[in-house]
């Protein structure tokens, strides 16, 4: 078992009244985020990144974007953050302990 540093992503909500959720898109930099990028669905306005399986091996610099989604599936423009360093991949443990 390893311990991953705890990171939380959050954002102020969309001001539109018919928003039912959000989508968090991500791409390894320098690739820009698009609506075809990998994403996870977000029900609230914060995500504990260390608890998201898709981010378990993140160990690079990423571009991320969040869009609002309404009940018909329409999506807003992105709120973007570029060149975010992520390191959610724990190092290898040290070798066997030896008592001398």
């Amino acid at each position: 078992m390893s311990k991953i540093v705890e990171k939380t992503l959050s954002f102020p909500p969309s001001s539109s009244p018919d928003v039912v959720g959000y989508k968090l898109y991500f791409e390894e930099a320098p690739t820009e985020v698009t609506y075809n990028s990998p994403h996870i669905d977000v029900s609230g306005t914060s995500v504990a990144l260390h608890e998201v399986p898709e981010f378990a091996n993140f160990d690079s610099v990423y571009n991320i974007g969040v869009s609002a989604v309404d009940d018909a599936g329409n999506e807003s423009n992105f709120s973007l953050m570029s060149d975010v360093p992520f390191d959610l991949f724990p190092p290898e443990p040290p070798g066997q302990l030896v008592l001398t």
Partner: protein
Amino acid sequence: MKKFFIALCLFLFSVTTASALELRDYALYLETTGTNIVAKWDDTNNSANVEYEVRLYSFERQVFVAIGKTTNDTITFALQKSGHYTAYIRANFIDQSECGNDCYTDWVLSTDLTYATVNGAPRGWWVYGYLAAPGPIIIE
């Protein structure tokens, strides 16, 4: 504050007439006042027995959204949901005791090039309201 963006057009809107009503040639205009949309038309009937009924059709949800009825030549409304909408209008007799089967005109569609024009030229139109994006991302 709701941040719907409204695609605005200035257009002429003619209504198919039912013979018993003799309703025709409305000039309908859209404006915005903050978050509201104002639809206006020229009340060429000028009759106390005529009211106008306006509704929208949501492409995404495939439902009609009733905007309202009025005897005036304007109606104000706000989009409650994002998406693409076309507009419909028809004229009705208020007192329908003597109009038989001709109490309403046909619905006229804002994308029907037979009737809709923009800036005087035949052209369909629609209204689009988009979702406001969430605020800036914070990671901590």
